[in-house]
């Protein structure tokens, strides 16, 4: 979504009610996070929301003390990769084969053949769901994406793009410099 770090247009502290909303939105999607949610939002630090300059008006993200927590794009929200690395159970895992890693790190969408081949593995997921993209032989996630098809469709017809790449290692969000 972001190839390189973009300038931040505005930053604003989130109200405590908005933080509560953010927390509950997170827990709704990831109920397993319950015991750790307070670790993400320590009381002594405020949650800050940052918006990006045009033409990325639809993007915003929240951060707490130099770590990006979540990224928002229009109506979808997903965790930052560093957060996902810490809590890998947050999202369903879709594994791609070795040959696909280069392209995914370059920002390409995940193609269905890379998921159904011997090195890939897929979990049941609906269209539009946010998933973690893992890689064959690696322990950590390399990207976060949104399902463009359901798992069934991918299995029955493994051609074309299957997961839209939203956020990947070394992209704009990964390298984003936060104002102090």
């Amino acid at each position: 979504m972001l190839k390189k770090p973009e300038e931040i247009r505005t930053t604003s502290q989130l109200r405590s009610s908005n933080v509560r909303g953010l927390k509950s939105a997170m827990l709704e999607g990831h109920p397993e996070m319950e015991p750790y949610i307070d670790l993400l939002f320590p009381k002594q630090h405020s949650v800050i929301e940052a918006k990006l300059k045009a033409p990325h008006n639809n993007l915003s993200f929240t951060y707490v003390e130099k770590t990006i927590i979540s990224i928002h794009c229009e109506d979808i929200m997903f965790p930052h990769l560093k957060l996902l690395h810490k809590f890998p159970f947050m999202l369903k895992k879709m594994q791609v084969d070795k040959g696909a890693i280069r392209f995914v790190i370059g920002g390409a969408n995940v193609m269905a053949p890379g998921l159904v081949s011997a090195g890939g593995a897929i979990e049941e997921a609906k269209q539009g769901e946010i998933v973690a993209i893992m890689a064959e032989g690696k322990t950590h996630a390399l990207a976060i994406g949104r399902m463009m098809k359901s798992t069934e469709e991918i299995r029955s017809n493994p051609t074309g793009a299957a997961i839209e790449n939203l956020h990947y290692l070394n992209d704009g969000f990964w390298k984003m410099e936060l104002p102090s």
Partner: protein
Amino acid sequence: METIYPLQVTYCPICTLPVEYCEYGPDFNACKKWIANNCPEAYPELAEEFEKIKLGEEPAPIEEAKAPVQAPTKKVKFEGPKQVKIALLKRGATKNITAISGLKDFGIDLKAEAKNIRKKFACGCSVVDDSIELQGNSVNQVYDHLSEIYPDMKLVIEEEGGKKKVNKGSKK
């Protein structure tokens, strides 16, 4: 062993990626030295090489040879006489100006082009000496616009600190 969350992930300080993804990072060879000294277990197949690096040898596999060869050839290309420079200039603290210079070498009517840009980007745009200046920061838009209408043109985006982005232009 029970896993404790949050997990601790080792990130390579050189390319910022998790260590296991260094090999897909921008410069794996630069990272190798650090990996050899800190966490060689991430790449068991490279254990031998790491031993050598520890002994003081520079990492010099085939991949490294490729990279520097490509870089200089590209650099030579930039220095061709005909190129269009797009630069971002500052006016005061908060205002920017996008300057396009070098269009004249391509035989383009600057006044007409300025008018086109004015219409397309809806911003003030004028001809100053031999360059076109736009009000506001539209470096990337101008870049896209020019590469669309003049696909053969060699475009260089100039930012503070030197040339950063170079693309387009037919080979020779």
